[in-house]
């Protein structure tokens, strides 16, 4: 007989072993799958960041990708031949997080009085402004290189280990993506720990209170302005870190990567998984990252085998599946696949 704590520990240990072994299993199917996993983890990071703003504090943000863009461009500008700067990543990543945090405060400060739909519209505009800035800041001073983007961005370098190439260690080949995978896992672990701590803290409780009733929150002594700003700032910082890692992994950034669609995608991950619940959000992000890739690898060969030609483009099918998934989720699990207990409670109340 095992008690709950033991069983939980054993479960976590098994998951940890599986996650450590995963990239090698994936690599045997092709390095592309390791890359796909890395991008999925990036989306998990983004979703966890957005979850702070949307899930914890209840502020609908449709321009979240702006912070991802800020983080990515900070990294790109400071570690590429564009300016001839090549700062190490452990300097740039925190800097990118700080700049994104500042952007979060800049967005947050004037929009704090807005709620719901109005906030969504303003944040949507903010996301577009950032993207358009990136697009146009190539003249008179070439800051962002415009729509051409910034290429040949440095990959991470820790001591003699460069994340662009392969290393052999203890008979195992560590390709670039595998190294990034482990680094991403470390960052993800840190982000999860910070998220959980936040959720159970005084700040976390204040966010819930604001989400529920702002006047009552103020009457209870919560400085709603600062607490909301903090949600924006924290969410933005996580976005900035994810952006920096994206720039390094991709080696190239351009404004095209930060369109509105990306914001909506991340929001869909949060909502589908279950707003406010960290594990639900992670599941949502994983699901929406992997399903399109699976489609890409199955739909096309299947069609060719069946009809001898490609009838429906996987890209088209992707949107169809997304739409259907969201509609079905909202119909059968309105609080998300794996909701936070509080959201679930509220949904049940509304039904009763």
């Amino acid at each position, binding site marked *: 007989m095992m008690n709950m704590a033991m069983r939980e520990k054993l479960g976590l240990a098994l998951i940890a072993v599986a996650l450590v072994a995963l990239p090698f299993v994936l690599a045997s199917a092709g390095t592309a799958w390791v890359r796909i996993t890395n991008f999925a983890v990036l989306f998990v990071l983004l979703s966890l960041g957005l979850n702070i703003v949307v899930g914890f504090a209840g502020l609908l943000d449709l321009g979240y990708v702006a912070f991802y863009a800020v983080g990515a461009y900070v990294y790109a500008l400071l570690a590429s031949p564009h300016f001839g700067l090549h700062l190490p990543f452990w300097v740039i990543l925190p800097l990118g997080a700080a700049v994104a945090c500042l952007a979060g405060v800049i967005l947050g400060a004037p929009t704090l009085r807005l709620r719901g739909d109005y906030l969504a519209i303003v944040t949507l505009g903010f996301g577009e402004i950032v993207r358009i800035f990136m697009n146009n800041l190539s003249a008179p001073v070439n800051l962002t290189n415009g729509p051409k983007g910034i290429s040949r961005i440095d990959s991470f370098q820790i001591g003699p280990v460069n994340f662009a190439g392969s290393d052999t260690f203890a008979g195992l080949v560590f390709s670039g993506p595998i190294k990034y995978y482990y680094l991403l896992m470390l960052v993800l672990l840190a982000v999860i720990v910070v998220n959980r701590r936040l959720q159970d803290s*005084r700040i976390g*409780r*204040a966010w*819930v*209170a604001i989400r*529920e*009733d702002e*006047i*009552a*929150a*103020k*009457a*209870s*002594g*919560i*400085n*709603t302005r600062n607490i909301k700003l903090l949600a924006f700032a924290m969410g933005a910082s996580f976005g900035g870190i994810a952006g920096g890692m994206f720039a390094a992994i991709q080696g190239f950034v351009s404004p095209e990567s930060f369109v509105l669609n990306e914001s909506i995608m991340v929001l869909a991950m949060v909502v589908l998984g279950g707003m406010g619940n960290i594990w639900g959000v992670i599941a949502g992000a994983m699901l929406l990252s992997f399903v399109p890739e699976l489609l890409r690898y199955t739909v096309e060969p299947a069609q060719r085998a069946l009809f001898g030609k490609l009838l429906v483009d996987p890209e088209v099918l992707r949107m169809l599946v997304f739409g259907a998934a969201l509609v079905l989720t909202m119909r059968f699990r309105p609080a998300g696949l794996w909701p936070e207990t*509080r*959201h679930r*409670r*509220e949904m049940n*109340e509304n039904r009763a």
Partner: protein
Amino acid sequence: MALALLEALNLHVRYGGISAVKGISFAVEENEIVCLIGANGAGKTSTLKALARMIPSSGEIHYRTERIEAVPSHDLIGRGLALVPEGRGIFARLTVAENLAMGAYHRRDATGIADDVERVFALLPRLKERKAQVAGTLSGGEQQMLAIGRALMGRPKLLLLDEPSMGLAPLMVEKVFEVIRAVAAEGMTILLVEQNARLALEVCSRGYVMESGLITLADNSAALLADSRVRAAYLGE
């Protein structure tokens, strides 16, 4: 005359071009229960919200030894001024116990908070039975009691109660007013805003009658209950 705990002088509240409160002055002394009665739209809730600094206003608001017009709303509970908002304003998705804990958000004294939870439960035994229940599933009357209990968790000196009878069944209204009486009996100073004039005047020692943003009558409760204008307009006689 003793120094007033709360005093408003020439208080104005405007929403855009519309004046909701048009320059009223009144005072609440320590240990007093005072009510502000009047019809829907007379400006009672706006007055209370202005006192709690939830909405901007002009005029002077004196509380204890200072003027609080420039004090942000979230700092008032720490100064002993607690608002129980209109429409109950509980945190529907939190449990009863979590709601009470939010009322002590500004406090850091864990043992004092635990004592106060017990005091609130002693005053409101129904809440104790339901402490693990989600507040949104409580009945309207229980939610109102929870809102009062949460305000008490801040150890206030002055309680601002906004329409505690609103939307409640008559039996529940009685129960909520019993609670208000019990809180008052412990020496709390209360400013009560109420449409139910008879109930309000029965628990209060003094009252102000508001009409279209102005105070039109001010007297002790017995006199107001006997006043022919009050009887005609607010007591349905």
